[in-house]
């Protein structure tokens, strides 16, 4: 059936619910009031000459920044398709800005479960009688609904979970594979320089650390504990010869 014809049938059947019918590039969208959406969808799915058995997509729209003004702020859009009769229709349910909510269609298509959760996640539109209405793509403690037009592209602030994770990483780094160097080691550079300078390979670590170790016992002991030759710039062969 032609999309226009489906829209007209829908209008005769549910004349009070249909707000408007729009057409673009051969695709017809029917603007609806939210109250009777489940009966309308059930009728489209079950009536013998329509048999719209495939819910292609379900998504939300925020109309607040449109160039032309729209009657309501939010929309939930349903794309329906009939796999047997090969026709489609688009239903656009208009929802108010204050407390947008619409009945869930999970009872008709169980696949709508996550799609509705996504709309809730991204737009904050509630679905009545939904079995498990919580966020799906974002963490449960996320603030705001990102696909609303007033939500900034870069977000408002760092997610609390990530902040905690970063703090935890810093804490763990204290005991990590590359712990931050002790503050004392930076003062007297001679120990390090001597140890790393390949020009003086005859010095052992302990010797190199020796002259500068006066106020830095800690560094010296650590260095002395290392086997001779380690970190002195000697190659393995040189060490063997020594």
């Amino acid at each position: 059936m032609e999309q226009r014809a489906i829209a007209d049938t829908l209008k005769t059947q549910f004349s009070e619910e249909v707000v408007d019918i729009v057409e673009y590039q051969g695709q017809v969208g029917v603007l609806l009031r939210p109250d009777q959406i489940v009966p309308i969808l059930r009728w489209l799915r079950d009536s013998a000459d329509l048999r719209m058995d495939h819910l292609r997509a379900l998504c939300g729209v925020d109309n607040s920044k449109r160039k032309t003004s729209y009657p309501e702020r939010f929309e939930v859009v349903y794309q329906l398709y009939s796999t047997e009769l090969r026709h489609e229709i688009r239903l656009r349910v208009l929802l108010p800005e204050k407390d947008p909510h619409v009945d869930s269609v999970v009872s008709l298509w169980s696949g709508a479960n996550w799609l509705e959760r996504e709309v809730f996640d991204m737009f904050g539109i509630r679905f009545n009688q939904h079995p498990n209405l919580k966020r799906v793509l974002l963490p449960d403690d996320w603030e705001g609904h990102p696909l609303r037009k007033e939500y900034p592209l870069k977000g408002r602030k760092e997610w609390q979970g990530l902040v905690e994770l970063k703090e935890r990483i810093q804490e763990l780094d204290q005991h990590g594979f590359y712990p931050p160097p002790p503050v004392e080691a930076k003062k007297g550079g001679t120990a390090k320089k001597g140890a790393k300078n390949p020009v003086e390979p005859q010095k052992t670590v302990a010797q190199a650390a020796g002259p500068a170790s006066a106020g830095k016992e800690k560094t010296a002991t650590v260095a002395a504990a290392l086997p001779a030759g380690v970190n002195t710039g000697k190659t393995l062969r040189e060490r063997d010869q020594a």
Partner: protein
Amino acid sequence: MKEPSKQTVEVPVATGDEDRYRLRMGPQHPATHGVLRVDLELDGETIVACDPQVGYLHRGIEKLAENRTYAQTLILTDRLDYIAAMSNNCGFCVAVEKLLAITPPLRARYIRTIVNEMSRLASHLLWLATHALDIGAMTVFLYCFREREILLELFEELCGARLTFSYPRIGGVRQDVNAYFIDGLQRFIDIFPEKILEYETLIDTNRIWLKRTVGIGKVSREKALSLGLTGACLRASGVDYDVRKHQPYDAYDLVDFEVPIGQEGDSYARYRCRMEEMRQSVRILQQCIDQLPPGPIVGEDAPDLHMSQRIIPFREARVSAYGTGLIALSHKTKPTYPAGDIYVATEVPKGELGFYIISDGSPRAYRMHIRSPSFIHISALTALSEGGLVADLITNIGSVDVVLGESDR
């Protein structure tokens, strides 16, 4: 030393439920094919409740698309299904072309069909490789990657990239195919049917393969439609629905191919469907090579996107009808964009990929929703797996063929 705190440990009272426990599988589990986490409640080895968790790869592509021009959004679609990025590019281009009323030339449509089917083969090969590996057939994994490599090299020859192509453009394709590419493709499709036989010899009558796929993750026809399954998952349940046949795009109405339909709706039927699809893809590729018409690869009314084949004077590019590309925008010309909304679906290897684009007359999409098959297929895992064994969940994740980049967007 801290003294261990003296706590009384509660000994669970036997209630008949003592075998029940929770298991969090993933997001780093190798069999979840990415960053999918599945929260399981188990009774022994039987799954009582299965709750997949997605979102680890969420990049806000729909939000980004509202802030970029259509040409700039194209590269984001590579990052959806990175296994078959070419199909995603084509799907997006087809949708924007319909929105802006642009017709790509015939040659471009054929080339797109070629790359579409090539990426279907590449995706199905990767699916078969990993699915077989999950079930325990290591050899198939190596064989499949051997053939996938040929395809990736052909892609590299075509556009210089192996995974994220951005090769199709709104109104055409980026570059023309060369003789080397066509030769290589011809050689590939000459040998590939034998390779499919080789895989089938390895696993088709393998007792372990059969035991682990036949009757596992069974979905009836009605249930599959209710769950919103598409692609091979839906066809394995006996529903004749393929967007390439139902609402043809590119050159699919000009080539002859069949859509394999299964009956049982289990993992084995899904496997059979995909194997047959590969054979049909080879058929389509052969016809495309034979029929490939000469002519331009970019339409006259296409938005200028710095196409190497279409060198036009700078000033002319500014005022071209839909001068919607990167260049046109930087010159403050104001091309007219129609206002309207459009939903265009294409058949990607995973299922039906749909783009719902609303335009309000600005060069950016006012809203772009991506109907991603993987997202819906993951949500169907609950229905497929509850009541089965943990090992069958691995089979199910593999056989519905999901990719998390597309699911999380």
